[in-house]
Structures are given as C-alpha cells and as structure tokens.
C-alpha cells in the first residue's frame, strides 16, 4: 500500500490573470483577518526553508485561501558551477508541500565557492554562459518535474565579452529549454536606463508569447561617475509612473497577465500595498476592455 501523508498536499491552483503582491510577515494577520480580494500571493522560496514554526503556519493558512506562486532567489542559475543539489531538493520539497501555481527564478548568479552573496549578480551573454544556463534550467525542470519561469535581470553594468544581446540570449534559453518567462517591467526600465536601451523596443522584441507573469516594483535613482543616470532595483517604494506606462504598453501587447507588486524593503501598510495591486488590475482591465471593443467594432 502506498504510504499515507498526514498532511495532504493541496491541489495546484493556477495563478489567475489578476494582480497579486509579495507576501510579507508584517501583513500575515491582516490578510487572515480581512480575507482581501486579491489575485494571488508570491513568496521567496528561501524564506520558507526553515523546518517549522510560524512562517509555515501562516503560509499554509494563506495558501488555503489564495493562489500562491513561488519565487526563488538562491538557485544561482547563472553560475559556472553545478547547481546546489541540496538546495534543489529543498525547493522540490517546498513545491511538493505548497503546490504553487508558478515557480520562477532569475537569470543571475548569487553563490561562488561556498559564499552566498544574497544579490542577483549579472552574467556575460556568451555562448559559454548560455550552455551553462541551459543545462541548469534543464536540471531544474527535470528535478522539479515542471516548467520554471526565468526572470530578466536589472543590470548596472555590461560585460565587454558579451556576444549576445540580452533578448537574443533569453530567447535562445527559451528555445533550448522550453522554460517560460517572467517579465519584470521595472527591471526593463532599470536595465534600459542603465544600458541606454530603448525600453519599448525591449518589450516589443521580448519573446512575449512565453511570458506567464509580470513583476512591478520601485527603484532608486542615482548617478554614475560620468553623471549618467544609474537606477537601482531597490523594491522599497511605489512603482514609478514611467514603469506604469511601460506596464500599460506590455499589457496592450500581451493581454491580462498575472502581475505581482514586489515591495521587499521599507514595507508599506497593507492598504498601501493593496492600492498598488488595484492600480495594476485597473490598467489590466481597462486595456482588456478597450481591446475587446476594438475587436468588436474595429
């Protein structure tokens, strides 16, 4: 007879084409007490890799009431070394336990030798990096038994040795691995400003049919030594007006998509965070209606 689990894993619930927010411990109680009308919650996988305790209790209860997506920050897919098998196993167990509707990770590296840097570090866009990233994503998808989404990075500098554009690099990863994509529109604005790219063109040329989720967040403005604007992806404030504009453009091209508000530092009140999600949803639905009427009359 097959072994019985004491705790039955929940059924996987798809993430709807609505707005969600990153789940923060500061908001656990309010969410459970008020049962807000929100599309979904997303958590960082590494924050729920403790053995037990309150984080799991709260997440289980929230997972009972809302769709959940899982966002990894520590897999280091862009590293030149083998993936950390222990970490992949923990990820697999977490996915088994919570059955998130989507799982995403970054085009970045964060570990080297034994050190974990807790930052999403950039990779050179070369054939060598491409084949490493592809084999890592293959391993992740094989181990987890599901498709993962890859997120475009915020970058502050470029590598002289890069031979691919970022978009060609990402498109080739998708072609070779069959992974899906997470389009972080704030990252597009940050990277496009820092690299002097055209953000509209970036979005238009991105492999949009593979996008299954969008991220929005706030950034900080600084300048480099030559006085050029340098944007930092800080997730510590509201989404910028320019990014809302780019989001509208993205939704016009893509139709409604699960859209996450990321706010990870200087955590706002629940009301303020929820208002950001409502704004995203308003844009999503307004453009959706316009598209519908255009289809009907135009």
């Amino acid at each position, binding site marked *: 007879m097959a072994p019985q689990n004491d705790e039955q894993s929940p059924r996987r619930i798809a993430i709807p084409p609505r707005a969600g927010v990153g789940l923060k411990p500061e908001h656990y109680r309010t969410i459970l007490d008020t049962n807000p009308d929100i599309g979904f919650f997303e958590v960082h996988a*590494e*924050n729920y*890799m*403790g*053995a*037990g*305790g*309150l*984080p*799991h*209790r709260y997440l289980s209860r929230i997972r009972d009431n809302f769709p959940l997506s899982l966002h990894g*920050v*520590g*897999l*280091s897919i862009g*590293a*030149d070394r083998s993936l*950390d098998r222990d*970490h992949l196993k*923990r990820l697999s167990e977490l996915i088994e336990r919570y059955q998130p509707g989507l799982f995403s990770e970054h085009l970045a*590296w*964060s*570990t*080297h*030798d*034994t*050190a*974990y*840097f*807790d*930052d999403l*570090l*950039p*990779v*050179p866009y*070369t054939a*060598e*990096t491409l084949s*490493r990233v592809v084999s890592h994503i293959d391993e992740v998808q094989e181990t987890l038994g599901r498709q993962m989404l890859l997120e475009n990075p915020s970058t*502050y*500098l*470029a*590598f*002289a*040795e890069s031979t691919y554009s970022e978009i060609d690099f990402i498109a080739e990863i998708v072609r070779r691995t069959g992974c899906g994509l997470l389009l972080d529109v704030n990252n597009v604005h940050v990277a496009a400003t*820092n*690299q*002097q790219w055209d953000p509209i063109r970036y979005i238009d040329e991105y492999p949009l049919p593979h996008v299954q989720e969008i991220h929005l967040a706030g950034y900080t403005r*600084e300048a*480099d*030594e*030559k006085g*050029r604007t*340098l944007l*930092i992806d800080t997730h510590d404030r509201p989404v910028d007006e320019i990014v809302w504009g780019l989001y509208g453009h993205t939704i016009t091209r893509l139709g409604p998509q699960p859209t996450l508000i990321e706010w990870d*530092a200087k955590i706002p009140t629940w009301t303020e965070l929820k208002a950001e999600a409502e704004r995203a949803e308003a844009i999503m639905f307004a453009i959706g209606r316009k598209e519908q009427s255009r289809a009907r009359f135009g």
Partner: protein
Amino acid sequence: MQGLADRLQGFAAALLDPSLGVPPGLVGPDGEPSPKRFAVYRNNVVVGLTEVLKANFPAVCRIVGEEFFDAMARILVASEPPTSPILLEYGAGFADFIAGFEPAASLPYLPDIARIERAWMEAYHARDTPPLEAAALAAIPDRHVPSLKFSVHPSLRLVRSPFPALTIWRMNVGDGVPGPVDLAAGGDDILVVRPAAEVELRAMPPGGYEFVMALEQGQSLTEAMKTALTADPRFDLSGNIRDLVAAGTFVDCHLDQEPERMTRMK
C-alpha cells in the same frame, strides 16, 4: 577571451575585497570601465547581508547602536559571508565573532546576547512537534520513573552566561526599557523552547542546566539528577521536572529496555 569561471571568480573576489579594484571588462554603456556601477553590486551585497544580521540580532543592535552594529557586521560579512541561501541560518558564528571583536570588549556580555538571539532564531524555525504532556508523564507507573529517559523538543536550546544576560536581553527587545544592571550579580542559565507558536525563554534554577544537558545526552532521570546535584547541591528534582514539562521541553520519555514509548502506554 576570459572564460566564465575566471570572470565570476574575479567578480566574486572583488565584491568582498575593495582593495582588489574593479575587474577589467565591466563597463558602462560607452564601453568604458565604470567603478561606480560595480560599486552598486558591492553595496548591495554588504548592506543586504548587514541588514540580514540586523534583523536576526535586534537586541545586539539596540545595545551597541546602529552605526556600531553596521561597522561590526560589515567586517563579519566580508570575512564570513553566508554559506547557504537560507539566510535565516546566517549568523551562527556571530557570537564568537563579537567575542573576538576588540571594539566590543567593553561589553563582555554582548556575545551572550547574540547567543540568546541565535537560540531564539533556531527555536523559531525548528521542526514542529507537540510536547510531552504532564498527564502522560503522571500516568507512568512509579517503579519505572527513576530509569526514564527523555527526548527533548527539537526547538530546545540552552544558553549559559556568567552575566545576567536574560535580564539584559529582555530590556532590549520589544517594549523593553534599558535600566541599570549589576553585571556582578551572577549569571543566567537560559532555557529557550518553542512548544507551539511562540518562542519562550526562562531562567533555569540551580543545577537545571546540567540536568537538561544530561537528559539530552541520554542519561536516565536518576543519573541526570546525580549530575545536577554534583553541579549544584540546591538542585530540586520534582520542581525542575514539573517546570520543564510545563515549558514543553520534552517530546516523549521511554525506558531503555523498552522500544515502545512509555507515553503511549495505556
């Protein structure tokens, strides 16, 4: 052309060691080197990990002040970065680091405050399991009690300090208000455990620390009592057992010879 391994090696080394300078080939949009841009990554790593330590050691931070804490934490971050992406585990070596950190030497109790906060963190994230109930222990026939052995709760941590560290910790967390403390007033043995949702800390009575250590190491109740009495003749067996069970220190008890757990005997 530089390979990926060398590139990331150089990048990683320069992140934590500013004396290495910015690796060549990391450029701005004009193709020219831009140290300011590399500095963003350096800053993200060092400030990010410092913030992790600050979140994991709030009382240490309150005692020394934010500026001192940041300076101290940055040295640890550069010399002992995390070895795992699970950052709730970061800071296991912080107490020992503080103990060897010369500028903090005037606060001799500070490493023990860090040990308490570390124990709190470990208990908070430990595996969940229901503790042994007093009724289950009371149901065990008297003749078996002296040879009982106990399994401790996965969240149990013990901290021993020659200073009143528990008092100082309480003054520096939550709504705590710092006040005068007599450092020579004697030390604290501290029991940290999370039997359900909340982490609980309590001062242990004389001999209690040795008693729980002995039980945790697999000594029977009688053996552990002797160990505790040797350490401190004031040790009170029944009071300790009652309080420890009430605190949720154990998950079950059993006899050596008997594979079946006594708490399941009806």
